[in-house]
């Protein structure tokens, strides 16, 4: 029993942290580098094998577990990284055709997440995505978007493009079973954890240097106590995510329930931490040049993916848990 990164896990986490902070820094969103990964970065990530971390070895992946998957996506979240990174990894896992799979692993095509929205679909991901992945708790379906109509929409969250998709044909591949959903839950919960940690770090650092009435704001209890509450929420979300990812790795029967709880707690922690981070920064917190709103907008979007509050709570209520 051990519930913190250790051994090789630590090495992967620190390699991911270094690489992502360099290749996909949150600052990019202030420097006009645009939403989504972009083809170049996608190719670089593909070359380094980041999309195939949890892909089984016999399918050309690294054969690592939900734990490494979580550690990688936590770093993506910390930099407000786009959701198409996750879409790419899940699509590669979904593809049964070997040629298509290795092209997805290599990042040759763009992939976005498809979400049912009334009669049409929403696309979260690049407007020129070749594929769209639609994941439910029971299956994942990969669609070729070549002939579909993709209408770009203005996006609240600058990390991702947003579009309405219509005219989808039948999926080119379908993966039955919960695997896509579960790795999607781990991925989004980890991104939410990473950006909650980023929000907490931002305000704690600022609270040490910003002074009002002759004292750092971090000495005022209204600020300190909110930071403490943020830390508690983040700590709970982190512990539960480690628990859930490990339960999935070990194939425990109660893994789905732990994943639902992990996603729910990550949703709540991220919405709370990114909200408080803006408030406690004062006026500077609402400016476009600051990172605070980027984290809040991305948290709002991710909290809808792979289980929003009401869906998660409905499935959690009667779920049985093991020792």
């Amino acid at each position, binding site marked *: *029993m*051990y*519930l*913190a*990164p*250790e051994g090789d*896990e630590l090495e992967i986490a620190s390699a991911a942290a270094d690489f992502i902070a360099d290749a996909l820094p949150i600052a990019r969103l202030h420097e006009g580098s645009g939403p989504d990964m972009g083809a170049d970065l996608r190719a670089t990530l593909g070359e380094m094998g980041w999309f195939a971390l949890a892909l089984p070895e016999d399918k050309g992946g690294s054969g690592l577990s939900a*734990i490494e998957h979580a550690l990688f996506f936590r770093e993506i979240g910390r930099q407000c990284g786009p959701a198409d990174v996750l879409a790419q990894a899940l699509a590669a896992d979904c593809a049964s055709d070997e040629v298509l799979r290795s092209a997805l692993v290599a990042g040759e095509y763009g992939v976005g997440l498809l979400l049912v929205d009334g009669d049409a679909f929403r696309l979260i991901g690049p407007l020129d995505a070749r594929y769209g992945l639609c994941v439910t708790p029971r299956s994942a379906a990969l669609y070729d978007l070549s002939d579909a109509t993709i209408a770009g929409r203005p996006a609240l969250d600058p990390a991702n493009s947003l579009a309405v998709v219509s005219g989808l044909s039948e999926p080119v591949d379908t993966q039955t079973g919960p695997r896509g959903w579960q790795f999607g839950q781990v991925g989004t919960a980890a991104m939410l954890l990473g950006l909650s940690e980023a929000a907490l770090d931002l305000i*704690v650092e600022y*609270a*040490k240097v910003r002074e009002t009435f002759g*004292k*750092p704001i*971090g*000495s*005022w*209890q209204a*600020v*300190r*106590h909110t*930071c*403490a*509450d943020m*830390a*508690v929420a983040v*700590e*709970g*979300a982190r*512990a*539960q995510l*480690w*628990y859930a*990812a*490990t*339960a999935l*790795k*070990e194939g*425990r029967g109660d893994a789905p*329930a*732990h994943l*639902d*709880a992990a996603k*729910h*707690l990550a949703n709540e922690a991220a919405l709370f931490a990114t909200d408080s981070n803006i408030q406690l920064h004062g006026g500077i917190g609402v400016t476009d040049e600051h990172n605070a709103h980027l984290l809040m907008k991305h948290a709002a979007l991710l909290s809808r993916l792979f289980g929003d*509050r*009401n869906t*998660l*709570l*409905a499935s*959690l*209520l*009667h779920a049985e*848990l093991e*020792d």
Partner: protein
Amino acid sequence: MDLRYSDEDREFRARAREWLQANTPKDPRPAGGHAASQFDRDWQKKLFEHGWAGVAWPKEYGGLGLSGLQQVIWYEELSRAHAPPAHVSTTYVAVMHAGPTVIARGTEEQKAYHLPRILSGESLWCQGFSEPNAGSDLAALRTSGRVEGDHLVVNGAKMWTTDAAHADWMELLIRTDPDSQRHKGLTWLAFDMKTPGIDIKPIRTMLLDEHVNMVFFDEVRVPLTAVVGELHGGWSTAMATLSFERGLGFIADQLELFEKVGRAIKLASEVRGADERPAIEDVEIARRLAAIKAETMAIRAMTLADIAETDRTGMPGPKGSMMKLKVTATHKALSKLVSEILGWGFFEFDGDRSNNPWTHDFLWSWVFSIAGGSNEIQREITADRVLELPRSR
């Protein structure tokens, strides 16, 4: 990371479960008074006689020397078996922090005298730290002890002393250097409650009980051999006591909460609301219950993460305060929700926990977020020690 229990851990769980099933008292714990403390002593004695006392204590002092993880297993099995809950037991102070303080700071004579008595349920302890004008700000305490030969002569008043009327011994923290300020010049005594000159006055609480007390000291003579740690060095001993209280002190409550949510969900399926439908069919109630369940899962994960880390490093981390904040908030949310589910039954309360545990729990939720360091103080500690923010004081 891994969630696997070793063969020894699994075997330990099976053994604990079997023993608890056969030995958990069938009768409910009496509501209060001598009958309640006798019940607690009997249960502790039974644990002791069957080799289950002092799960956290080192073997050389008669404990079981269990790993943190096995302690978690033990508390999980206790609450699964509906065994007497640790947080309302009069053995709590003795077993959870007085004994461990004597182990850490006591002399060989003190260890030899006190430890076996605590384990067997012969000695109950209370905690005499807080005073009318020293609660959160413990270092403001004024109860004094003047050195006269080989004795201290104690004068003053302690307040909020839980179970003082039943305790045999008290963790007594006093000011022994009259010229000292704040944290300096304090002394921690193992105080014999039979000593002449003390007067115990119960304080009735909103739980309709008289568990907490004022304890007055009038020229009370205590031998210097009762000092645990250094004379005038009591702050350091007191910090050891609080570290035991804040470290694993709440572990039973943490894990019991997990069990309680299951009971609340069952209750919500049975109790019907004003519209004759089971309460759980109300979507708001169902969602609040599920959200609380998720919190208790996180609390359990935090507990296991923390315990496993401590087992590995041998050093408890600074996260006890965060744990207490989460546990008390979740406890409050649960007991509030159940108060709504229960309808008018919630208002039937005579002070006896076993007659209406949920109403008792509802009232207890404020004790939990104030006693043992209020939630505001826990936020201060988290801000100082975990986040390293500039101090507020």
